[in-house]
């Protein structure tokens, strides 16, 4: 028996000795970047210490009792089985402790529910499996996708510090500005969580929830979706970059210019190779999850693109699928998420890749055709 226990302990210690648990942030919440998050952190630590003290007292009392009253020769157990005063005392004691906890908790709660004006309003929409950000006042917006490569996820490339916590386009906010987030979802329930802001707000289809923040120092803040939203729930991180108001202003101007540029792009003359290059990039970001890098899909739920009649011949149906999604299947509409150029490019890519150009009609799709589809002229 003793040898057994000892050997078990040795094994455990042997396994964990090489691991180093250094950073405090690996085992505790962090104060975060806003006044609210710091107050919540303070509340957390207060409640934690109260619980720790109670826990230590209870466990120490227990250890004492277990040791002191272990069976001894000739010692008879006591026979009492009741003490109304004692029971009343600790009931009241518990009640007092709880009141002591609830007062600061209520104070922080009231601060968290602040509905004063936002200087900047940002609409956050959860999609399976990405976030969409729209700057309401400036009417510009974009999608934010996980940018960690599949190679890293499949252990084919080394992982770095921000593994699974990096996106292609972070949300940019200015510092020293009151920002209100309006949070909703497009399909199932998601939850937008940035620990450094102490915002965790469910994104529910058909509902608009509110959260707000005020960041005083520039920085990059990372979070994740925290409501199970389907198979890639673990792969829709959030990255928020707080920048100076000047930088923010130029970011918004850039976005507005890009929007105009986009409109111009759709009128330009395109080369096949250009579209394939853009399309491949879009495909890697948006399509590989279901249709796979090889285009083989995961039948029967996610059909193969290789050798598919829709991809080989007559491009109209393929455009329609990209624009409308497929009713009753996992395929969603990309009309809102991708630009005309991107949709045209990704269709062109699938019609050129994996030998589809040999097997099918190999026609390319131009951004104009997508625009036309949108305008109902097709």
């Amino acid at each position, binding site marked *: 028996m003793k040898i057994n226990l000892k050997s078990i302990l040795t094994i455990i210690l042997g396994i*964990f000795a090489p691991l180093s648990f250094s950073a405090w942030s690996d085992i505790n919440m962090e104060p975060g970047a806003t006044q609210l998050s710091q107050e919540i952190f303070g509340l957390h630590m207060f409640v934690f210490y109260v619980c720790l003290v109670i826990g230590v007292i209870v466990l120490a*009392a227990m250890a004492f009792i277990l040791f002191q009253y272990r069976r001894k020769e000739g010692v008879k*157990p006591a026979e009492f089985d009741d003490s109304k005063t004692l029971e009343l005392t600790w009931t009241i004691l518990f009640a007092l402790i709880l009141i002591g906890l609830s007062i600061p*908790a209520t104070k922080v*709660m009231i601060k968290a529910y602040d509905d004063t004006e936002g200087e900047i309003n940002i609409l956050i929409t959860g999609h399976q499996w990405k976030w969409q950000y729209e700057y309401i006042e400036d009417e510009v917006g974009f999608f934010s996708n996980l940018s960690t490569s599949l190679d890293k996820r499949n252990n084919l490339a080394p992982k770095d510090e921000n593994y699974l916590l990096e996106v292609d386009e972070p949300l940019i906010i200015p510092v020293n500005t009151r920002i209100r987030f309006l949070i909703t979802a497009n399909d199932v329930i998601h939850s937008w969580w940035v620990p450094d802001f*102490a915002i965790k707000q469910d994104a529910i289809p058909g509902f608009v929830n*509110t959260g707000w923040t005020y960041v005083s120092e520039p920085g990059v803040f990372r979070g994740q979706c925290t409501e199970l939203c389907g198979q890639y729930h*673990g792969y829709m991180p959030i990255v928020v970059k707080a920048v100076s108001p000047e930088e923010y202003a130029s970011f918004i101007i850039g976005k507005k210019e890009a929007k105009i540029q986009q409109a111009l792009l759709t009128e330009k003359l395109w080369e096949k190779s250009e579209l394939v290059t853009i399309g491949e990039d879009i495909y890697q970001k948006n399509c590989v999850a279901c249709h796979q890098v090889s285009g083989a899909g995961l039948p029967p739920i996610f059909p193969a693109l290789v050798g598919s009649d829709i991809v080989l011949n007559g491009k109209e149906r393929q455009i329609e699928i990209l624009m409308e999604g497929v009713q009753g299947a996992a395929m969603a509409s990309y009309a809102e998420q991708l630009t005309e150029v991107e949709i045209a490019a990704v269709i062109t890519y699938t019609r050129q890749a994996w030998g589809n150009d040999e097997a099918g009609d190999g026609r390319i799709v131009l951004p104009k055709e997508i625009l036309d589809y949108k305008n109902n002229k097709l």
Partner: protein
Amino acid sequence: MSAVIESNHDDHHHGPAKGFSRWLYTTNHKDIGSMYLWFSLIMLFIGGAMAMVIRAELFEPGSQIVSPEFYNQMVTNHGLIMVFGVIMPAFVGFANWMIPMQIGAPDMALPRLNNLSFWILPAAFGILLSTFFMEGGAPNFGWTFYAPLSTEYAPPTVTFFIFSVHIMGASSIMGSINIITTILNMRAPGMTLMKMPLFVWSWFITAYLLIAVMPVLAGAVTMMLMDIHFGTSFFKAAGGGDPVLFQHIFWFFGHPEVYIMILPAFGIVSHIIETFSRKPIFGYSSMVYAIASIALLSFVVWAHHMFTVGMPIAGELFFMYSTMLIAIPTGVKVFNWLSTMFKGSLTFETPMLFSIAFVALFTIGGLSGIMLAIAPADFQYHDTYFVVAHFHYVLVPGALFSLLAGAYYWLPKWTGHMYDETLGKTHFWMSFISVNLTFFPMHFVGLAGMPRRIPDYSMQFADWNMMVSVGAFLFGLSQLLFLFIVIKCVLNGKKATAEVWEGAKGFEWTVDSPPPYHTFSSPPSMETLKA
């Protein structure tokens, strides 16, 4: 066929039939109790195997052994099986064995219903597990199955899942009706309600909870079924429904359900601590009132699972305060157990070891529960591993340890053989160490920001997750030892006496070990308990 029924009829008076028909047709509370216990043990290994898959996937960052889709199926079914297939049936098994024996009744009040409520259970889990082999795969929307992920976006097998939940619910409800009826009508003369053993009390209240909330769950899944197949819009925003309503209904069931899984544990542990302290339980009546008030409070705290759905502040505060109130009766129970041991004459056999671990680790789970009740702080804890750590602390070293403690405590009574004490203690120490190794670091990664139900995670959580996985594998392995101990005990344990444990009180210790197939054909007298 008629021959079988006839022989079965005869057996009713003389003893068990032989072969499979004994188990299929039995109306004997001991047979049914054993079947419940074996069933939950089998399910423990199935649900446990799923936990092993989860921990293997999370052993290191990066994709390991299963796809994210299959991972979600594992998470969902691990939860469903552990809740509905392990903890609940195991407690019903204990109730079947022990309630009639503890109140001096010959059997359960409704023996045929008893047979039915057991036998539909394997059917329910057969259906649930069969979805793994169907197109679209098993349910993958978490054991809390929030709409619309579980309705519009669910795999086609959701219909089988709904059917299976209906059957599980029916089984629990029938079991509860039986238990309440038995307790109300079949107590030995002189056993007033306030003289009932605490295990009986805890089940009496639990059974009422089950009758109150299992039908609500049935209603919730029925609404899902109608939304999916009959075009209603209970949870569809497009038709004027509300997905948040689903969460309210689910947690109206779900929170009492949490207590359904812990109240009988309170009963079991009270008996064991009393026996091995050689001292009567401290504050019997406050124990009863504490259980009753926990049960009542459980109906008004449900929305603390939903602090982040966007409730108005008044709602947040109400549910925060009501949740904190639960700490009072729970604290009373812990202090009463400590006071029972105080000035006792303690010995540390395996059941006592598990019970002590129960009190200690349940206290940790209770304290993290208080932290979670603090609504503003819960914005940071919600749906992280901190929550996973919390509820595993109350369900594994809580509910599961009490079941193991109870099993060791009553195994000699059930089988007539002593289990191997050395192996039992080995099992305890392995379980105790590995359970903490598994679940304690989850607090850390949760606070550091790791969301639950994710198949892969960022580098900062890597070290602790590896430790958790090793702990989990060790815990899984330890339970195989338990299976060995039980089989060894049944086959060739030492002969047990009627009393088994020195100082054990209650009717069950006045009959032989194992008890005759039919105990107490005439009701025992309360006088026999005095000595």
